[in-house]
């Protein structure tokens, strides 16, 4: 059938071409000017508010606090001597890797669970699972802040009633780290669920039928059919989420403001504290710029995967 359609198109094209040559040439000449005109607003926006600010951030990071003297890499050298900065590096890495791992795991399990349901039930469960993703993160985090309240709220009531335990969710450094990661997992898992579900649906069913005829069990089908087919989307989603999680701001800002004792600060919140709240714009700018090499490497791999996927399709 596909061949018939192609053939028909060629025929139509061939019979029409001679008639419109002149107008088509004029059309081509005009359109490159127009093409540039239409992308100009985009270029102005990206050039003025993304590319320029990026280079300006590099310049800013080399000034002193009053922004009067050029001091080279002194801000970066200063940061290297601060324990808090190294704690931020460690916490951002821990936060991003742990949260992304669990988001991917939960998303993968739930995508399979929904995929196993009959079609008419899938919509409901997909709808329910996406609620955390749809709420603005700063506002749902407020709800979590209340849940973590040590005295009056739900978590400690449940733990107290069942096990007689009382947890200092946000005032103990390790529990605070756990708490911010848990909220991130809650917000981000639905994204993985949706991406993986879309990927699962794109696996041709005859691959499973063939595998089943060859005697592959469910586990083998997962390893030899599902995972290879989903490899690309798993990579893109994971890398992408590492960027966004690494650069997170809302959750930590609302829940702990970086505390207790700066143990939950991420690059974003620490940079905000130094740059906006304490008014040391150059130092804050230097902190934020530390994210760039990491994001750059991740972006490189995402782009490679997206290109690969584009050529596969």
């Amino acid at each position, binding site marked *: 059938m596909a061949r018939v359609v192609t053939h028909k198109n060629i025929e139509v094209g061939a019979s029409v071409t001679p008639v419109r040559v002149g107008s088509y040439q004029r059309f081509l000449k005009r359109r490159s000017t127009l093409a540039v005109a239409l992308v100009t607003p985009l270029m102005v926006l990206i050039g003025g508010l993304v590319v320029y*600010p990026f280079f*300006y951030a590099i310049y800013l990071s080399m000034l002193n606090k009053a922004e009067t003297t050029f001091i080279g890499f002194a801000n970066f050298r200063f940061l290297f001597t601060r324990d808090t900065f190294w704690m931020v590096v460690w916490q951002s890495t821990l936060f991003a890797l742990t949260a992304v791992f669990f988001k991917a795991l939960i998303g993968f399990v739930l995508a399979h669970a929904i995929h196993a349901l009959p079609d008419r039930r899938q919509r409901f469960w*997909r709808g329910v699972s996406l609620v955390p993703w749809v*709420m603005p993160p700063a506002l749902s985090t407020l709800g979590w802040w209340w849940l973590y309240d040590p005295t009056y709220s739900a978590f400690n009531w449940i733990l107290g009633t069942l096990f007689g335990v009382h947890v200092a969710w946000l005032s103990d450094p390790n529990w605070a780290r756990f708490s911010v990661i848990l909220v991130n997992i809650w917000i981000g898992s639905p994204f993985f669920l949706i991406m993986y579900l879309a990927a699962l649906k794109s696996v041709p069913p005859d691959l499973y039928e063939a595998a089943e005829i060859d005697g592959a069990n469910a586990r083998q089908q997962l390893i030899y059919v599902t995972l290879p087919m989903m490899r690309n989307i798993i990579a*893109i989603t994971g890398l992408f989420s590492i960027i966004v999680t690494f650069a997170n701001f809302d959750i930590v800002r609302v829940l702990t403001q970086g505390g207790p004792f700066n143990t939950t600060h991420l690059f974003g919140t620490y940079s905000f504290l130094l740059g906006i709240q304490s008014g040391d714009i150059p130092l804050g700018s230097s902190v934020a710029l530390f994210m760039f090499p990491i994001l750059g490497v991740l972006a490189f791999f995402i782009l490679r995967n997206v290109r690969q996927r584009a050529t596969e399709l």
Partner: protein
Amino acid sequence: MSGGPSRKKSRRWALITAYICLLVFAVFFLFPPYYMLITSFKTNEEISAQRGIPLLIQDGPTLEHYRKLFFETEFPIFFKNTVIVTFFTVIVSMAISILAAYSLSRLKFWGATVMATGVFLTYLVPDTLLFIPLFKVIGWLGLLNSKWSLVVVFPTLAVPFATWIMIGYFASIPKELDEAALIDGAGHFQMLTRIFIPVAMPGIIAATIFCFTISWAGFLYPLAFIYSNDQMVATVGTVSSLIRGDVFHWGGLMAGALVAAAPPVIIYAFLMDYYISGLTAGSTKG
């Protein structure tokens, strides 16, 4: 190897496991909004009393927190500002995206592919990387402490992905269609408004929802650029100014958070399929 009955049995077990998994995670996903909701309907006395089961409303629901929210706080101003900012952000972002996507997908010119890649890379730039230099830029523009600063900066987050979605949709429109329009004497403007926009409507809706969400949920930029209450938007306003000195502000705070979070949730409830198609077109933030 796998006979009929045993396969059927394993299918049933798979289904039961699937439902158990989904139930457990549905509780995990819905518990926080549920608890926010019941807290917003409880009296302060009940929240502070610490008796009975806090997971239920025991003294009867009250609308007192909502009444106070709308009539005794500045929340209505925050909400109105968010609506204004979001409206203009969506218009500006979509206009820029549709024009650029039409150009990049159809009017192949020198550097179009590089530019499309550049747009995708810009989409990967997080707001936390550039808010400090943007703070200075907004200062030069004289827009510090103005809600209009957000209409300037939010499009930088929304446009790259919206353009990316639109390029995908426009590229899927068969070339025969615009050749036919060309023969009928249509210009580029007519081609865009009569063919591309109507045919790519699902993509436009998905991209619009994306721009709406970016603007409505924006938190870092308003927190950094705006400090007076008359310019404040709902996210930051709820977080920073509804928190009072006294301990039992929880009911009012949860009411504010829920009302501010309601519009994206309502839009999602009605347009879930567009929302999801936007999410899976390429890949969004997660």
